[in-house]
């Protein structure tokens, strides 16, 4: 008899309990995910980024805002691994701390957006009728704007800064989640097990929270991962246009904006944060792509 979490236990054809069955399903998914080389690259890169951002004070031995005007725009060297920017600040340290800002924004947006979209979509899908029509019209209105343009207008009205950028991106990012959750809800709404739950006297709120929302989670998670790259790009674009994080905060888009004048002679100064944005966004795309294949093959 093999122990819990051993390979045989995880691949068992006859799970002994609900928890066991769930672990078998997760392990199978992981095996399928692991076979996708590009997705693994994405996963590892994302993991490295998270660790590097959390450990930024340990990894960067220079202060990201310490200026040294005498040593400005220096090329990469032993003292400054990625060179220095237009105010002589260490770019390596700024990239690491910038990762905190970017990942922080991404997490904040997703945490704001996914529950809202999930709630709107599942309520609309489950209740149907007037509630469905009203909620979906509101969703359509927000979908009718291109994301960046609406975000720009919002930020301009609110005052440029990180908080405004997060709110603005969140306001434009929730509608697709509502659409997804509604579609998933519609497919399970008429099933027998929901009817059975209703017969036991469960309220609509309980059915939506306990039985419908969990079933919408896998497509929402896939969408979240794929969305993160879009959020990174929008946040960076806002920063680049001067409407996101404000200098001297080390945000990647803002760093490119403030150093773009030096691209002719010191090309690496604006290029390095550009590479950081690209790598971060690509990693999330690869990860999301792989997760979609495992969790939600329909969404291709």
């Amino acid at each position, binding site marked *: 008899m093999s122990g819990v979490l051993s390979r045989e236990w995880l691949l068992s054809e006859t799970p002994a309990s609900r928890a066991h069955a769930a672990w078998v399903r997760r392990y199978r998914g992981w095996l399928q995910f692991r076979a996708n080389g*590009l997705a693994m690259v994405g996963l590892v890169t994302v993991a490295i980024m998270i660790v590097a951002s959390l450990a930024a004070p340990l990894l960067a031995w220079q202060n990201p805002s310490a200026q040294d005007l005498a040593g400005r725009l220096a090329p990469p060297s032993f003292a400054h691994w990625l060179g220095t920017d237009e105010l002589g600040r260490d770019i390596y340290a700024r990239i690491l701390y910038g990762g905190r800002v970017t990942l922080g924004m991404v997490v904040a947006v997703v945490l704001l957006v996914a529950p809202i979209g999930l709630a709107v979509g599942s309520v609309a899908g489950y209740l149907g009728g007037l509630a469905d029509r009203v909620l979906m*019209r*509101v969703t*359509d*209105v*927000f979908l*009718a*704007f*291109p*994301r*960046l*343009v*609406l975000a*720009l*207008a*919002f930020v*301009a*009205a*609110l*005052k440029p800064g990180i908080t405004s950028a997060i709110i603005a991106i969140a306001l434009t990012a929730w509608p697709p989640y509502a659409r997804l959750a509604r579609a998933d809800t519609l497919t399970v709404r008429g099933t027998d097990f929901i009817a059975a739950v209703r017969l036991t006297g469960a309220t609509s709120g309980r059915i939506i929270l306990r039985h419908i929302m969990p079933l919408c989670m896998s497509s929402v998670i896939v969408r979240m991962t794929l969305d993160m*790259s879009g959020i990174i*790009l929008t946040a*960076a*674009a806002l920063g*680049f*246009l*001067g*409407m996101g994080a404000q200098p001297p905060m080390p945000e990647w*888009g803002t760093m*490119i904006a403030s150093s*773009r004048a030096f*691209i*002719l002679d010191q*090309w690496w100064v*604006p*290029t390095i944060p*550009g590479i950081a*944005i*690209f790598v971060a*966004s*690509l990693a999330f*795309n*690869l990860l999301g*792509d792989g997760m979609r294949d495992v969790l939600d093959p329909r969404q*291709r």
Partner: protein
Amino acid sequence: MLASSFASVPLTLFGLTLVTFLIGRVMPIDPIIAIAGDHAPPDVIAAVREQLGLDKPLLVQFWIYLVNLAHGDLGRSVMTSHPVTEDIAQYFPATLELATTAITIAIIIGIPLGVIAAARQGSRFDHAVRVVSLAGQSVPVFVLALLCLLVFYVKLGIAPGTGQLDVAYEGLVPRVTGMLVIDSVIAGDWDSFWDALAHLAQPALVLAYFSMAYITRMTRAFMIEALSGEYIITARAKGLSATRILWRHAFGNIAVRLVTVLALAYAGLLEGAVITETVFSWPGLGLYLTVSLLNADMNAVLGATLVVGLVYLVLNLLADLLYRLLDPRVA
């Protein structure tokens, strides 16, 4: 279905105007102080407030905004001191020119890539296409634009710099459509034509890569689904050539769905255009929007936002319509 998608248009339009109106009202920049000055006496402030209609209740203000909108009045831009509608008419054609060129390039390259990748699913070619298109979805447009300028304009010197036309040619071609490539052909001015085309190439290619990534991925996904159909097996059993099966049978079946994707990709270009135009100083709606933003010119910002939203809405509707027209299965 068709009726309901049309019925939602006025509602969506209403929402669009309401959102832009509300954004305009919560702005931290006080329009009264912007006009009357910081130290204006109270009676002047009251007069300006009355003149702008800001003393009325919010609902009345929104009504006035709607009535003005119906008359094509989006207010006056503080920056250019022209009516915003005039400014938009001035800047919009350049965006149209850029976006149309970009989508054309993206279609010509993106669709064949997607089709071939699907036909050779899992091959090296397929993986290469996947990486190239994922990279296109991940690269920040402004970084790509800056690097293009650095490499092709500064280092290699084979591309012209920013703007729509070289200074030497400016003002030579009479404005007809506002799209310089077309206007110079109408005027028969070939020097201007080649210069305009050369200026168009870089921003159009950057934007094209951005939407090509999306088009390729969708084409590939649709094709893989189509190729697994049973009619494909029938076609193979009949002994038809692989090319014919691929393009006539499989591609013919996804063409309708692709139209929707293309319309969405075209709408998505509006977003990319905002950034691309800023980097390339391309005198389009995106540049107008960002310059107005930096000057806190709210009338212009909201006008441009509304117009972009409108175009987006129309394109989405068009995608829906085409889909219903072309596919008899959707009644």
